[in-house]
């Protein structure tokens, strides 16, 4: 007698699916909706937006020229930045001395590019300090939060509430004025802003749903930090770096202007402006060249930084 009650054991003998219902698929095969257009990576997207911003691209080119010239410029003339030529002091610009000479007969063209080298070096170091101290400090504050965040934040706040140039001046008084001292001083004070930006960004990101999803799929802290949090913070980090550079350049020139920075015979735009002031009524070009170059350099960093910010976050553009 056949029983009408379904017997689960019978399923084995008469399978519903036959073997040829399944196809072996290569493990790299991906299927899904067909792409309507080429997929654009985040970086390419940023680059495309940046490229269409004429202003930003112009200032990027200016920066490029300044960097190249700071390396190549000194080789273009037979002079150097330190040799005195007391027979040719305070000469106006000519075919021989393109930017004229200073009160010791030193070639201003050479000295201007020497100033560029120093400014760019200070900017570079300030950016590195921002990157290492600022990003790590901010990252730790943001990721761990709570008590750690509170204590670290207070410390940063105290440091931030003292005008950084006062700290720098104090340090320079204690140590010998030199490029190293300036960079060290910038390192002590310069990273706080970066730390706060990274902190804010990480705090916001770590509560996002995709981080939660990743965590619930078993991702560890390291994977979340390196895979999700850091890549999404790179935009603001880069923008902040770009805007740190001009303030570092300003700080160096400010100190050198006061005689607390780079010492003669090395030339900084700050010292060149300070030296030129006493005789600017008679030899104004000595003031003009360093003045123009420091302004253009800072302008270029600021405007390119603005362009970069727009490219990373088009919502911010106003």
């Amino acid at each position: 007698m056949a029983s009408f009650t379904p017997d689960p054991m019978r399923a084995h003998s008469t399978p519903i699916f036959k073997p040829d219902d399944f196809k072996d698929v290569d493990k790299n095969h991906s299927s899904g909706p067909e792409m309507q257009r080429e997929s654009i990576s985040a970086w390419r997207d940023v680059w495309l937006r940046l490229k269409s911003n004429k202003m930003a691209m112009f200032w990027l080119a200016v920066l490029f020229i300044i960097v190249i010239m700071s390396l190549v410029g000194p080789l273009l003339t037979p002079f150097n930045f330190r040799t005195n030529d007391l027979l040719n002091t305070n000469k106006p610009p000519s075919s021989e001395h393109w930017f004229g000479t200073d009160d010791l007969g030193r070639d201003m063209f050479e000295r201007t590019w020497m100033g560029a080298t120093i400014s760019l070096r200070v900017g570079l170091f300030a950016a590195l300090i921002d990157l290492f101290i600022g990003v790590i400090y901010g990252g730790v504050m943001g990721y761990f939060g709570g008590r750690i965040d509170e204590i670290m934040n207070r410390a940063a706040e105290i440091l931030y509430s003292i005008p950084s140039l006062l700290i720098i001046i104090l340090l320079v008084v204690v140590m010998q004025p030199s490029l190293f001292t300036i960079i060290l001083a910038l390192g002590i004070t310069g990273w706080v802003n970066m730390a706060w930006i990274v902190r804010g960004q990480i705090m916001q990101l770590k509560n996002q749903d995709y981080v939660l999803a990743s965590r619930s799929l078993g991702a560890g802290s390291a994977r979340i930090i390196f895979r999700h949090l850091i890549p999404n913070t790179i935009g603001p980090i880069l923008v902040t770096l770009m805007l740190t550079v001009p303030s570092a350049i300003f700080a160096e020139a400010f100190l050198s202007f006061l005689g607390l920075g780079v010492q003669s015979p090395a030339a900084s735009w700050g010292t060149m402006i300070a030296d030129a002031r006493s005789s600017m009524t008679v030899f104004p070009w000595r003031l003009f060249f360093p003045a123009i170059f420091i302004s253009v350099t800072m302008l270029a960093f600021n405007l390119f930084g603005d362009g970069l910010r727009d490219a990373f976050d088009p919502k911010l553009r106003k």
Partner: protein
Amino acid sequence: MVRYIAVKLLYMLLTLFILATATFFLMKVIPGNPFLGEKKLPTEIYNNIMEKYGFDQPLYKQYLTYMNNLIHFDLGTSMRATHLTVNSIIQQSFTNSAKLGIVAIIVSVIVGIGLGIVSALYHSKAIDHFTSIVAVIGVSIPSFVIGPLLQYFFGVKLGWFHVAGLKEPLDYIMPTISLAALPIAFIARLTRSNMIEVMNADYIRTAKSKGLAKSFIIHRHALRNAILPVVTYLGPMTANIITGSVIVESIFGISGLGKYFVLSVSNRDYTVIMGVTLFYASILMIARFCTDVAYVFIDPRIKLAGREGNG
């Protein structure tokens, strides 16, 4: 509210204490002292001087004396101009700095807010572009470049103003421009973006659809909310003006505290350096404190527990 103010005050004092301690030990780290070097002083005189400044005492005692004096607002005696106390130096030279600083702050606020509002109202018009150029120039061209250039063109070439000094009202123009360029740029940017944001807000649309006059809307609704965040800039602006004054006073030969500070740095007059640093820091702290408190009063939305912004 009282708790909020008390906490802020406490942090202010803590910061000042840390700064005072740090400057004290920084100055002690320096090998030697200002009286060594130059000419060799007779031992008796040298010992007398050491005693006068308390340098013969052990370090912790010196520190305690220093702190005790600070509590009584006594910043010590100058090591160079030995007949002057740091307090009297600050008193004498700060008048000029304060005059110039206050003029610069007033000009920055008025011009900055004015430019910001006008450029927001004429968004993407000529005046807007002009403002963004002014803003970029203000941020990018340092005061020690603006100052000498102004001196050269308007002082020397055109002869409109005195190259240096601060005797007549007209003398204020060039130093004020040099000092105010940066704050003007910041305030104009800030006001502009706030104003644009506010003008797109729902309540402005409501006001417009009620048929209110544009001038009334701007006056009554938009402006108040747009210039609110400018208050937060008061702290950083004070810092900018102080750093700026150090340079601008040297450039324009104004005998103010900034110029004296630079002088004392190159003279290594340690007591003056420490005193002026603390004085500047205190002014800044007070400005920050006022900002925090004022903001709570102005903007009821602010959370009392919240930290102040990055500004």
